[in-house]
């Protein structure tokens, strides 16, 4: 708390790492320095809004609805909200958005939610259980399977960290890792590097390279390495340069609560 004395804006919060606010602030920090972000449905919409106000004012926000360069006057309640359209730099047709912007290789980070991510970064947003009569029918791909093919890299945010959300292998590969794409021999390999960063309520996992596996790169305050490994569905490697996630700034939390998600749509 000594830092806080020097600069009140840097005063740090005591949010629990499992809270949406904590996840959003961690995500906003991860987005610093990234130019063009394709934000998916849900928590990513909240995190990119915070990033634009804090870590990355010049970030270009792209949405699958066709919005490019959004300048929303209020928090978007979804990727097709009218506030993303009014005042945007461009409203493209879906063909231009998915075909030219995304598949054309112009997206730096695809930022997605997921139900499950596995060891090599395959994402499941389709089914829990058997495909034909699943326990849970999840939302399906939406744009996720298209985004993972062509965005330079993918960030995923998970609301849970347990072996169900981080299994050795996902129940269904909606959006494949390059590891799995490579196994389909004879196919034109899509250019995306796949999942590079997974933000969970316990820490941050990273894949060191295109064909690598997820490793523990950061743990959140009050979380132990053992706790993370116990709650992960495979024998999780821990990076030697493991770091402790900095706590969110009080100012970030204030922004989230008082200026961004004033209707508490995402902050549940």
């Amino acid at each position, binding site marked *: 708390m000594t830092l806080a004395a020097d600069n009140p804006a840097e005063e740090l919060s005591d949010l629990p790492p499992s809270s949406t606010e904590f996840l959003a602030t961690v995500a906003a920090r991860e987005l610093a320095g990234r130019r063009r972000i394709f934000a998916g449905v*849900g928590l990513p919409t909240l995190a990119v809004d915070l990033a634009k106000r804090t870590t990355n004012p010049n970030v270009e926000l792209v949405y699958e609805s066709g919005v490019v360069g959004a300048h929303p006057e209020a928090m978007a309640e979804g990727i*097709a909200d009218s506030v993303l359209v009014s005042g945007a730099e461009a409203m493209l047709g879906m*063909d231009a958005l998915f075909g030219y912007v995304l598949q054309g290789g112009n997206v730096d980070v695809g930022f997605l939610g997921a139900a499950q991510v596995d060891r090599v970064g395959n994402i499941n947003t389709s089914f829990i259980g058997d495909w034909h009569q699943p326990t849970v*029918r999840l939302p399906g791909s*939406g*744009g996720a*399977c298209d985004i993972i093919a062509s965005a330079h890299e993918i960030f995923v945010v998970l609301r849970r960290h347990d072996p169900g959300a981080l299994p050795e292998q996902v129940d269904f590969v909606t959006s494949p890792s390059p590891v799995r794409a490579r196994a389909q021999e004879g196919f034109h390999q899509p250019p995306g590097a796949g999942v590079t960063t997974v933000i969970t309520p316990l820490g941050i996992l990273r894949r060191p390279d295109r064909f690598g596996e997820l490793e523990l790169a950061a743990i959140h305050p009050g979380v132990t390495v053992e706790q993370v490994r116990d709650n992960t569905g495979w024998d999780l490697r821990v990076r030697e340069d493991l770091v402790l996630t900095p706590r969110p700034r009080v100012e970030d939390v204030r922004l989230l609560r008082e200026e961004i998600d004033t209707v508490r749509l995402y902050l549940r």
Partner: protein
Amino acid sequence: MNASKVTTLPEAIGTHVHDGATVALEGFGHLIPFAAAHEIIRQGRRNLTVCRMTPDLLTDQLLAAECVGKLVASFFASGSAGSLYEIRRRVEQHDPEPLEVEEYSHYGMYCRYEAGAKRLPFYPLLSYVGSDLPELNPRIRAVESPYGEGKVYVVPPLNPDVTVIHAQRADESGNVQMWGITGAQQQAAYAASRVIVTVEEVVAPEVIRADPNRTLIPAHAVDAIVPVPGGAHPSYAQGCYDRDSAFYREWTPISKDKEAVRAWIKEWIHGTVDHADYLDRIGAERWAGLQVADAPSGEVSYGRRKS
């Protein structure tokens, strides 16, 4: 000028949407054709193959009203509002029976309309390599590039019997203009045999022709123009009225309860004679809360040759 295509919603749905038809109801979060879908429910259509990238709660309603035999889609939830429980009951519990689903990613679904509109036998995309989706849906197939870069996945054309969309405005001959998010509407319209367009407003041809680049669907692709102000509620029409987000949030508990959904259909759809009646029941106060301030686009000039 061509003959007027302006008609009523009961007439348009009655003439063009038949039992067993493949019906695309498009509008990506924006301009969702709710009024038209409600009229399909009122007329008791059965066994439709409903095509929609994002089924949204419109599809939950069509399912609960027993209009749907099959769903072709790419996202089975409702944006920020979460699950669509009528879909989940059908898929997870086969209650009241299993639902036939043909599933794509968004861009794959879009490319199906694109192939349909262009009468192409297939359309290539870079998605799906390594995904389980091609195994789930064998209509997603592969083609070898004749230029030596390996195989890519392709999807087949989607040619609906009828496409139903909502737009801000059209002239009476059927030139349709929209702005904001335009989704797959142009492609779904050109892909279809018949096209019904509900609009906020029928305007004079001169309004359309003053800004021809704003026309997304020319008259030749349109069969019926139906003036239905507020026809996208509870979704929105950019510049006309905003999304009724409270309605979406209220849908979740309704959708969770099988009987509540049916009661809702009975009260709000079968219990209203048309969309104007539905909006009356929504109430002036709620409607007033969805109004937006003006944000003018500015004008450009197309120029006129001096003689």
